[in-house]
């Protein structure tokens, strides 16, 4: 393989890592609070608010049911508004984040729902405020499940990022299509697939390890 190809590979690897890392971070920052709101505004929960719960639920469902490739194109005006351009790696981060936020929200929601309501009740009986219940009970108690959920999110984002090529986002997936597929470079195709598999493996193993360390059950 030529020097040039190696540089290209390194660049693509960086682009994928960059896109996935930034959009994971953004989706976690917004998706986790959203998931917490989805749980706590549920009927009978500490911050019961049925209208808010239903509206958020509907938005989350709508976003999740849109295929990523369509979402990416459909929100181009938003992307342009946010990053000033609709093409490139930074532009790809917007749809990636928007697709992952509801995913994270639902994962966090189901993780928090696993927390036994009795424990919440015990905290209430000790005079804990809703904020204290969220920060001292709900999040610590469901942290192992949240970590596994975020691991899943990162892996999904690695997959989604392969489509970023459609809006010039670059990355390994884009490289595989442009060189491996369109220029019949089987070696490029092979090596990008191997790198992607390795990436997913590393993320999954790290996530499992952290989650296990946190789990005291």
């Amino acid at each position, binding site marked *: 393989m030529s020097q040039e190809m190696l540089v290209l590979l390194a660049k693509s690897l960086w682009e994928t890592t960059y896109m996935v890392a930034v959009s994971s971070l953004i989706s976690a920052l917004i998706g986790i609070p959203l998931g917490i709101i989805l749980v706590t505004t549920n009927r009978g929960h500490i911050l019961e608010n049925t209208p808010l719960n239903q509206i958020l639920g509907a938005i989350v469902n709508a976003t999740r049911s849109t295929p990523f490739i369509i979402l990416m194109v459909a929100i181009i005006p938003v992307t342009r508004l946010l990053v000033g351009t609709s093409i490139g790696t930074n532009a790809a981060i917007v749809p990636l984040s928007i697709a992952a936020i509801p995913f994270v929200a639902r994962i966090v929601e189901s993780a928090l729902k696993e927390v*036994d309501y*009795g*424990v919440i*009740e*015990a*905290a*209430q*009986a*000790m*005079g*804990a*405020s809703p904020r*204290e219940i969220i920060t*001292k*009970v709900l999040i*610590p*108690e469901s*942290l192992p499940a949240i970590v596994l959920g975020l691991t899943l999110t990162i892996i999904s984002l690695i997959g989604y990022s392969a489509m970023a090529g459609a809006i010039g986002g670059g990355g390994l997936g884009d490289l595989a299509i442009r060189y491996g597929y369109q220029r019949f470079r089987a070696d490029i195709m092979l090596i990008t697939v191997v790198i992607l598999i390795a990436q997913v493996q590393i993320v999954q193993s790290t996530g499992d390890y952290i989650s296990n360390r*946190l789990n*005291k*059950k």
Partner: protein
Amino acid sequence: MINLQDIEKIYQSDNGTIHALRGVNLSVEQGEIFGIIGTSGAGKSTLVRCINMLESPTKGTVTVDGQELTSLNEQELREQRKKIGMIFQHFNLLSSRTVYQNIAFPLELAKCSKEEIDKEVLHLLELVGLSDKKDQYPAQLSGGQKQRVGIARALANHPKVLLCDEATSALDPQTTKSILELLKDINRKFQLTIVLITHEMQVIKEICNRVAVIEGGKIIEQGRVIDIFTQPQCSTTKEFISSIINHNLPDFFKEISLASDPSADSNLILRLSFIGHSTEEPVISSMIRRFSIDASILYGNIDHIQTIPFGTLIVELSGEQASLQQALSYLKTRELGIEVIGYVARNARAVG
């Protein structure tokens, strides 16, 4: 210490309304252990949750230690709750925290300093006998140990009242006993008022001073444990008590035809119940000496409610009818509960 007045609780659910509490009045004195017993669905869990307002009653007032909780806002209520400890059937410990951190939790909520927390937690660990487990996680503990952590956690803020929601129902009899001992100990040591709900009469018998029986959202009977045990009025109460003390006639009585009136040739069957000191008096033997009658014991049972002994005896008296009636009048002058079960023809009895 605790005063509940006309408490009503109505739940609105998708399948209609549930009237969980229908006008409950209850008052618990400072320093006593008050039991609330009922079958599942009777409303006892709702009732105990009304005391610390985990459930806010639809109607009525809750007063704890002179403070009316039903009139407070959320913020004020949270402050008051810190003075009411609670333990649960399933312990409800934080699985992500160690034993030490679990007990420290309410102190963190009360914004205590690290030093205060450390001092208090170590003291509590010693009180419940878990000093060696302080760095373990709840998953590594047995049920009884978990409940001990629950108790230590509930006591951390020096509460005036401890609420126990089926605190021993998930434990085996041996562990139940040790947890009850611990509660009794705490009650004595800190003059702590304890309200406990349970479906096990054994628990009531073991540690409660007074008891209320709840059914269908209403208190159907309440009083001193010894009175409720020896003279239950309602059928539900009798049923609960029969789980540990047999108030029913032994089965073989079913085969005997009993008459309610005496005849010249019949024996008298009596049930005698003894409470406290009367158990020490030799009633039967002095009766036999005074009147020329015979007594055979058909059934007997002596038990203790905490330190007070009490018992039941079913005896069959035989002799001249006149002597039998004299004996009966004599027994009525003693400190005994007497119930005439009936008269049985002398030759009709296979037993005795």
